[in-house]
């Protein structure tokens, strides 16, 4: 009988469990979960603070999930060492687990650059887990002044979640615009304006020079008084267990299109991996929930002897702040890189399309996001732009931009 070890208990682990069980009903599955919670929807921690969900609703699967999947979960412990040759994992309590196939699904850990005086701050938090979320909830009151370091996805979602619960929120970032990993200047500006209208203050192009317990002195000389500090500077793939294995490690553990690492019988899935982004051809840490699930499932199927591949991954994000939606996908090639940008401006939004070599490679939609998936599919399927009426498609954002033959194929009409 096979014994599967899954290290981590997030979305990639859930996908892996479901993937294994698609092919192997009997093999033993052991999940080692550092966190003391069944798999939950990690991106929902900001929605919890906002009051849009609760602890029960944010569970990713039904209560009987692990039981139904005949899966043992070891809570509150972690794997401290993986012995590739012996096929054995050493746990934090000194025990050992043998496996025939393992999947690394350890996710990512917050990255905190050295900051002077940070040790003086008592009320400081990351914003990655349910426990972080509960701790922040406990620490804030309607009088709290919150400083968030980092104007990326995590920092800004935290700002939105806390907006109605605290007195004021300041977000600072070294970058000169918000969401610099997914938005260009032109698209970031209206989002920032919208957030400012909802009370978030920004200090961009500025960084904390030194912390006191309740004060940050910025490089610009300005000071921010705060009661609660949230650090959301960035995350790093948690790959530490793979260091003693044959696995290649870039910014994440390198996996092939079957989610296999170079280590014997060890697969990896989710935020701890780097895989190929087909919109650019580059290896990337996707760090997205959809990728985590799909990679996990792919890994699980292959661990159980199947031959599943994941060929069309791209970075993509759907995120909103105070009712303003943003959708982004793929790669934004500049003109210097041979790309062409097509911009459509609307009263309440903007759409930017990035084309290169006859393919749509990426897009940024702000405010006007309906039917964005048609464009996501164009990128993921690498459908040549010449096969569609792109002029019409970009305007209507519907299937009138496709030939009727194409439509019949796509929608299963009578041929």
């Amino acid at each position, binding site marked *: 009988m096979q014994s599967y070890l899954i290290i981590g208990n997030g979305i990639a682990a859930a996908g892996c469990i479901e993937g294994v069980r698609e092919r192997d009903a009997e093999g033993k599955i052991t999940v080692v979960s550092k966190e003391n919670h069944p798999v939950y929807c990690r991106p929902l921690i900001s929605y919890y603070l906002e009051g849009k969900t609760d602890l029960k609703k944010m569970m990713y699967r039904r209560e009987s999930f692990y039981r139904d999947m005949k899966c043992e979960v070891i809570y509150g412990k972690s794997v401290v060492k993986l012995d590739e040759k012996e096929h054995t994992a050493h746990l934090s309590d000194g025990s050992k687990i043998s496996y025939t196939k393992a999947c690394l699904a350890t996710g990512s850990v917050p990255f905190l650059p050295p900051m002077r005086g940070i040790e003086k701050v008592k009320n400081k938090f990351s914003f990655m887990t349910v426990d972080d979320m509960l701790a922040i909830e406990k620490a804030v009151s309607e009088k709290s002044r919150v400083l968030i370091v980092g104007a990326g996805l995590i920092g800004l979602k935290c700002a939105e979640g806390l907006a109605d619960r605290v007195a004021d929120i300041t977000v600072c970032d070294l970058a000169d615009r918000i969401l610099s990993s997914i938005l260009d200047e032109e698209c970031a500006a209206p989002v920032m304006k919208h957030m400012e209208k909802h009370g978030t203050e920004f200090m961009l192009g500025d960084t904390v020079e030194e912390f006191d317990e309740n004060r940050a002195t910025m490089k610009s000389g300005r000071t921010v008084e705060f009661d609660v500090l949230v650090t959301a500077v960035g995350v790093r793939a948690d790959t530490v267990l793979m260091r003693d294995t044959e696995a290649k490690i870039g910014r994440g553990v390198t996996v092939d299109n079957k989610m296999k690492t170079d280590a014997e019988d060890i697969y990896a899935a989710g935020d701890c991996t780097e895989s190929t982004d087909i919109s650019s051809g580059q290896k990337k840490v996707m760090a997205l929930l959809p990728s985590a699930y799909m990679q996990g499932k792919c890994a699980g199927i292959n661990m159980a002897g199947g031959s599943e591949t994941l060929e069309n991954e791209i970075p993509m994000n759907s995120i*909103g702040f105070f009712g303003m939606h943003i959708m982004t996908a793929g790669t934004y090639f500049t003109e210097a890189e041979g790309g062409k940008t097509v911009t459509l401006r609307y009263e309440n939004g903007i759409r930017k399309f990035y084309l290169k070599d006859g393919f749509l490679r990426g897009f940024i939609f702000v405010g006007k996001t309906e039917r964005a998936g048609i464009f996501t599919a164009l990128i993921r399927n690498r459908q040549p732009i010449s096969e569609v009426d792109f002029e019409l498609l970009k305007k209507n954002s519907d299937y009138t931009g496709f030939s009727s033959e194409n439509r019949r194929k796509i929608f299963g009409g009578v041929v």
Partner: protein
Amino acid sequence: MKQVYVNEEWCLGCHLCEYNCAYANSGEPDMVKALKGKKIEPRISVCDKDDVHFAVSCRHCEDAICVKSCIAGALHYENSVVVIDKSKCVGCLTCVLVCPYGAVRESDEGVATKCELCTTNSHGTPACVEGCPNRAIVFEER
């Protein structure tokens, strides 16, 4: 599995399916009360270009990317039909970002909404099919 298909040669572009859909999903027994003076939120939408018309609704894909991508675990299968648990949905619209058909939209309540083949409303069978005057929309196995 039986699916809603649209024969676009037969579609007149009358948009009646959109009204029938909105009515079936309104929870109102009276059609006038359900629709009069309201902005309708149909889960099927007719696209028009010159004399080409066709309606688009959820394809209930076998291995649906919206289900795999749902960050709230709200989209799921019930008897092969892709349905959404509105109490779990937080309105992030990742499903809108990934649906290749453009068949998911945001409702006025700020959550995602899509065709559930009328299995979750009181209508029971697809209202768009029943009300199509030219029988362009059919519910069948292919």
